[in-house]
Structure formats: structure tokens, C-alpha cells
């Protein structure tokens, strides 16, 4: 259940790469326990927005608050505890290619918990089962298809039961059935664990299923923000076109 308390807050955030401005004075709040979907064409800065939330990138201007803490003002030693409460599924899954799929999922558990080895493996298997990959524990990431790697990446992001889950293109490379399964898993996380979801996607049906609030990022600005129904009625033609596109991953 959403408590409407902002767990993520952007205040006039700007970010550029060289002469290319990606975000310009962007401000928004994300309520705790809600699902926030960021839509937009490729290269508009959606993934950058996610990376700013976990300080993989820093903005040139503006402030970003995560659970009330200004993430870019935190000293290095205070950053890991905050990051431990967040999970990140990368667009490319970013699995560690020198260890097995199961070891990828077990990695954060080994690093950050004192659980016995048997329990860690059990937990990693559980997380893989959640994404339908229980039989792939011993496989190497290179032996998985793109969609399977994505699901394994999601299992790793969920390993520590984060209260905020940042998801970059969850449907990319997945067949429609698996995509719906992943959406269902994300919705279960939201309803059962009160996980805050921030999802970057091109997949409009998926965004309609998951999102409590949708935003459309265009030329460095959020040009529309609201529920799927509100965006369907937007005055902005780009937003209406986008919502009609039904584009898959």
C-alpha cells in the first residue's frame, strides 16, 4: 500500500554529457510503495534518471533525496547502507560473467549477510525460482538467452529484498508471456512487500499493468505525468502517440 510519503525526490535535477543535455531542471516525487514508470523514446535519459537515483551518476545541478537523505551529499561510507535497500536491474542485466547464474544471485547475500552457506544457496535458488530459472543455477551467464539473463539479473536485484527496486527495461528481449509473468512478479512485490518500483520501459501495455503513475520524458523534461488514463487524454500529441503505440520491449 502506498503511504504517499515520497521515498524518492528529484529537485530541479540537470544532467548532461559533454554538450548534450539529458535532463533539465527535472523535479518529481515518488511515493513509498508505488510503481512509477518512466516512458520515452530511446536516448532521452530514462536510464540516466535511474542511475542518478543510486548515485552511479551525479547531476550537475539539483538535489536527489532517497528516503529523506540527499544521496549526493552522503559521505562514501554512508552510501552502501542506502544502496543495500535498493535493487537495480540493468538494461543489459550486467551479470558477472566469470561466475555462474546462481553465484550471481548468491553474491550480494554472501557479501552482506552472515547466513550459512547452505541458506545462501537455498535463498538464491528461491529467487531464481521466482523468475522461472530454478534449473539454471549452475549455468554460466553466457549460456543463457538475453531474456533469461534479464530474469537472472532481476533475481539478483531481489536477493536482499530491497524496499526500492529500479528496473531498466524489464520486458526487453522477453516474449509476451514471460513479460506478463515479470509484470506479475513486480506487482506482487509491490502489493506483498510494499516495494517501491521505478520502471523504465518502452512497453506501454506493461506500463499500464504496473504503473500507478507514468511520466513521459522528452528532450530533457517530463512532458506528462499521471495515470495511464490521464496520459491517454493528454493535450500533448507526443504523449498521446506514445500511449497509442503499444510498443513492446
Amino acid at each position, binding site marked *: 500500500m502506498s503511504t504517499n510519503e515520497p521515498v524518492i525526490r528529484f529537485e530541479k535535477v540537470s544532467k548532461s554529457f559533454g554538450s548534450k543535455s539529458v535532463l533539465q531542471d527535472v523535479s518529481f516525487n515518488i511515493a513509498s510503495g508505488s510503481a512509477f514508470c518512466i516512458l520515452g523514446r530511446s536516448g532521452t535519459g530514462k536510464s540516466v534518471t535511474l542511475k542518478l537515483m*543510486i548515485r552511479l551518476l551525479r547531476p550537475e545541478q539539483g538535489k536527489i533525496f532517497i528516503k529523506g537523505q540527499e544521496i549526493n551529499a552522503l559521505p562514501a561510507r554512508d552510501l552502501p547502507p542506502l*544502496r543495500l535497500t535498493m535493487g537495480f536491474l540493468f538494461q543489459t542485466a550486467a551479470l*558477472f560473467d566469470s561466475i555462474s547464474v546462481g553465484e550471481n544471485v548468491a553474491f550480494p547475500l554472501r557479501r552482506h549477510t552472515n547466513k550459512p552457506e547452505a541458506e545462501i544457496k537455498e535463498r538464491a535458488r528461491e529467487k531464481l525460482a521466482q523468475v522461472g530459472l530454478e534449473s539454471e543455477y549452475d549455468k554460466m551467464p553466457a549460456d543463457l538467452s538475453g531474456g533469461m539473463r534479464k530474469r537472472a539479473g532481476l533475481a539478483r536485484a531481489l536477493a536482499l529484498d530491497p524496499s526500492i527496486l529500479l528496473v531498466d527495461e524489464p520486458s526487453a528481449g522477453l516474449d509476451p508471456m514471460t513479460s506478463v509473468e515479470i509484470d506479475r512478479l513486480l506487482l506482487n512485490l509491490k502489493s506483498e512487500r510494499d516495494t517501491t518500483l521505478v520502471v523504465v520501459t518502452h512497453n506501454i501495455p506493461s506500463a499500464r499493468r504496473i504503473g500507478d503513475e507514468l511520466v513521459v520524458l522528452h528532450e530533457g523534461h517530463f512532458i506528462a505525468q499521471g495515470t495511464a488514463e490521464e496520459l491517454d487524454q493528454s493535450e500533448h500529441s507526443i504523449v498521446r502517440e506514445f500511449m497509442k503505440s503499444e510498443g513492446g520491449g
Partner: protein
Amino acid sequence: MIERIGALVVAGLTWAGEVGSFGLQALREALRPPFEMKELLRQLYDIGSRSVPLIAAAGFAVGIVMSMHSRSSLERFGAEAMIPTVLALSLAREIAPLVAGLLVAGRVGAGIGAELGGMRVTEQIDALESLAVDSFKYLVVTRVLACMIAQPILTTLMSFTGIIGGFVAETVISNLSFRLYFDRAFSSMEFVDYVPATLKTVVFGFIIGTVSSYLGYNAKGGAEGVGRASTMSVVFSSLLLILTNVVLVKMIIFFFPEQIG
């Protein structure tokens, strides 16, 4: 033209400064907990143990070749008995440290550059950070330390296999006994012949670990960037190693003048 040369010099100095500060940061972080012991041991195995066959084989071959060359020169003066001594001293003082350094720069430098470069361009380093792991400590510090620890050990191995190679060559030609050969090889060997030259390879290990980690950790541009990081790691590590060797040899001679006495 002059402006272009000036710009190149400035760019080179800037790069050297960045690499230097990257290496110093690695040394500073190495002293600060948490210590990534498990990863350090894994890197020691990868960098050290897996280099053993290459270093041992190269040392053995170098020993044979040096023995043959020394014989052809010393025979003219009737000083064949000096072959084991000359061989042991040359290997310990210079040949083994430099050759082992260049071989490790080739094998390990390319590996580190490619591995970290690959991790950077496939977002695996970002993934480590997102999992609340200090990627610099986990990936860079462990590799730099492993190179610094492994290099003197590998150098000693090369000296030893070189002496063995020399013995094999000698015994085939002159039927020299194992005991007499080693007596002659080590009779003139002193602390200053082995220790300073072997310790200087800690610096070589630092150079190889730092340069290749820097290039891999900061790689950009997909597969091409990874390839570039790997190649440049070998080129710059080897070049810096050779140049630094000149300075280190001069320092050793300055602090241990008995070495040239």
C-alpha cells in the same frame, strides 16, 4: 608543430599524473578495511600461480641460452669455470627481474586490461556498485596488490629455473656435476646481488597492476575499447617497466655500491 608537440607532452604528463594518482589511491585503499582477502587470494592464484608455467619455461630456456653464450665468450679466456657464477649473478641481478616483468606485463597486463574493460562496458562495475560493493577496492586494489606480491616470487622462480637450465646446458657439454655447478653458482652470490634486485620487482608489479587496471577500469567504447585497453596495458606497462628499471638500477648501485665492486 611546436604547439602540437607541446599538446602531446601535456597530454602525456596529464595521463601519467592520473595513472600515478590512481596507483597511490590503490595503495591508500589497501590499508583501509574491509580487506578483500578472498578476492586477493583469487587474484594471486590468477596472476601468480597461473604465470608459473610461462615463467618457469622461459627461465629454463633463458638459462640454457645464456649458458651457451657465456661459454663461447669465457672459453676464449679459459674461464669456463666461471660460467655458473656469471649465469647466477646475471639472472639474479638483472635478467630474471626484467624478463619476468615483461612476461607478466604481457600475460597479466593484457588480462587485467581486457577483464576490467569488459566489466566496465557491460555495466558489471556499475552492478557491483549498485550491490553496495566498492568496485575500486574489490577490483583494482586486489589486482595491484596481487601483482606486487606475485612479481618477486615469479622473479625468484625465473632465476632458479634459469640456473637449472644453465646446469642442463653445462652438464651436456662438460659433464659438470650438480653439486659443483651449484657451489660455483652460489659461491659469489651475496645479499646485495639478490635482495635489492628482487625487491625492485615489487615496483614492477605495482606498475603492471596500476597501468592495466587504470586502462581497464576507465575503458570506453564497447568491444573496441576493451581491445584498446588490453593492448595499451601491455604497451604502457612494458615501456614504463623498462624506463623505471633504469632509475631503479641506478638507485640500487647508489645505495649498494659494493654491487659493482
